[in-house]
């Protein structure tokens, strides 16, 4: 499967998905005009690919500076997908990177991460 690379815009994050190495990155700000239009195809591609995995190691990194409430809904679904992928015999490492002084973003990461039962979760503070 070809990698999925989308450049960041003022209001949508960078997407960098390597389906062969199973490394995934979502980075930047996210408050698109229409979240479903932006994330629809991305989530669909992940769902399709993750369904084929068995015994794989998946590394998924979130490095978000800001996201709106519509994006939060998408992220919640994505975390559920990652946990389900881990539950069926894959190793899923989720990393949530946040700016050191932004404890709201840290707290949001904790809240998404605490529901993961099968995937491994790591909070990483980065210097802003």
């Amino acid at each position, binding site marked *: 499967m070809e990698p999925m690379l989308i450049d960041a815009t*003022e*209001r949508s994050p960078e997407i960098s998905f390597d389906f062969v190495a199973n490394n995934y990155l979502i980075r930047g700000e996210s*408050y698109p*005009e229409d*979240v479903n239009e932006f994330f629809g195809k991305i989530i669909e591609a992940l769902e399709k690919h993750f369904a084929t995995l068995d015994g794989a190691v998946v590394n998924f990194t979130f490095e978000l*500076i*800001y996201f*709106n*409430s*519509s994006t*939060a*809904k998408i992220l*919640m679904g994505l975390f559920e997908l990652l946990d389900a992928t881990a539950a069926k015999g894959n190793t899923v490492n989720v990393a949530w990177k946040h*700016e050191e*002084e*932004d*404890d*709201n*973003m840290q707290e949001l990461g904790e*809240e998404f991460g605490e*529901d993961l039962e099968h995937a491994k979760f790591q909070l990483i503070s980065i210097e*802003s």
Partner: protein
Amino acid sequence: MLAKDMLEFRKHLEAQGILFCYSGYMTEDILLGIGNALKKKMDIQDLDAKKKRAIFSIFVEQMQNVIRYSAEREMHKETTELSYGLLTVGEARGKVYVTCCNVVNAADAERLKITLSRVKGLDKDGLKALWKETLKGDTPEFSKGAGVGFIDIARLATGGIDYDFAPLEDGLLFFTIKAYI
């Protein structure tokens, strides 16, 4: 006379600590434009990152509420829609506030009252629980967004939120929400 009138208007805004004021049709482009100006202003003021993000988040949620839900809107060929609203961002008593107003119909006003009184009565843990429940649940049918915007606003508004409705003609109401950060 012209300049004098407008100066009076500006003084009226300044007296209330208003830094930004926009009244008119709101679009996603306008959200982006005002949002960028707001970010620059906050950078100049040297606010800490957490407070800046909170103000910006509340601004986006409030603007998107108007764009999606204002009952005062014009349609063009079923594709272009313009929603009317009023936004102010200001400072008072050491807090920044974001106020947004738009016209709503009676049914929406009832729904807003239920949602907002529930949200206003919750503490930090209660808001977190409702936030998660809403994110995991199905999006309400009437909601074009995630239905979680007001919970986000309440969670980020360290100085609390106020809301109010003023009656207009034809059963419509003028809805105002003010969040303090």
